């Protein structure tokens, strides 16, 4: 009975353990690092990408990615491509839950905000990473838009 109890306890512990996309930096691709168990582009790479995208004014995935990169500037990033072109304010009621405009552009309903680990070190970049990975989107054909990607080996 004791052995059975021990096995059950171990099984319970194992089931309480959550799957993680990464547990350390070497689980991610070279230009990414592991932040709050998600692979996120390193700060230096993120800054360079933002600089490049800041010069684009068209629509499409490029804009979506730029909006994602600017997630730290404000809570309302949903459909930011439309905001960029029309100047409309977006609804503030769903801030946080659908921050990733790249996902919104692709027609996916992103609800990743609730499952993001409450790590104080988690910044807007990592939150976007959570959203992107849960929706399974990687900004499609836009290579630079793939802010977060699993290790391709």
């Amino acid at each position, binding site marked *: 009975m004791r052995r059975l109890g021990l096995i059950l306890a171990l099984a319970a512990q*194992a089931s309480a353990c*959550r*799957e*993680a996309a990464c*547990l*350390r*930096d070497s689980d991610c691709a070279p230009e990414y690092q592991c*932040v*709050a168990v998600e692979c996120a582009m390193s700060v230096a790479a993120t800054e360079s990408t933002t600089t490049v995208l800041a010069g684009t004014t068209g629509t499409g995935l490029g804009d979506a990615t730029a909006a994602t990169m600017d997630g730290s500037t404000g809570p309302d990033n949903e459909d930011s491509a439309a905001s960029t072109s029309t100047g409309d304010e977006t609804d503030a009621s769903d801030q946080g839950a659908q921050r990733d405009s790249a996902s919104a552009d692709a027609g996916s309903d992103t609800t990743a905000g609730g499952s993001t680990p409450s*790590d104080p070190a988690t910044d807007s970049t990592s939150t976007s990473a959570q959203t992107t990975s849960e929706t399974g989107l990687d900004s499609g054909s836009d290579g630079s838009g793939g802010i977060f990607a699993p290790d391709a080996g």
Partner: protein
Amino acid sequence: MISAFITASLLCGGAIGQLAPAEKLQVSASIMAGSGMSLAGVGGRTYGARSPAFLLGEVALAHPQLQWLEFAPALAFEVEGRVGVGLIPKIRARLGGKRVRVWGLLGLPVFFAPYSLVGVQGGAGLSLALHPRFALVAEFTGTGFVWGSDLMSGSALAKLDQHFGIRVNF
């Protein structure tokens, strides 16, 4: 890495300091492969993932008059994802046995490429002799990594691994 070697050397030196110099150390080599489970805590939650598969190559040294104690520096390669390279100096305390030998081990794993990881390892293992020169080996280890550039910020990494291989006695 250097401190790990120094520590292991001091431990071995303290244990065998009273022995006369051996005419011939018992030397064996092993090659093993394994994997396991990695655990890390973030934000009060524990996350798990399968450990990257790894290869271990080691040379074990034992004094003929102190066969229960074995010093076994190992070279470790993580071969899934990015290839990681590390050194694991180990000390094994072995129980007697002709065909089957059982031991406990203590190690200081130090990974240095491409990222650094430093931790402490403990575990147990056994060998099954198939021939005076050859044996099958299995080890089960628990490792805690508490420092290194490979760790997430504010997090530690624990690994529960098993590895299997073959040992050759020279």
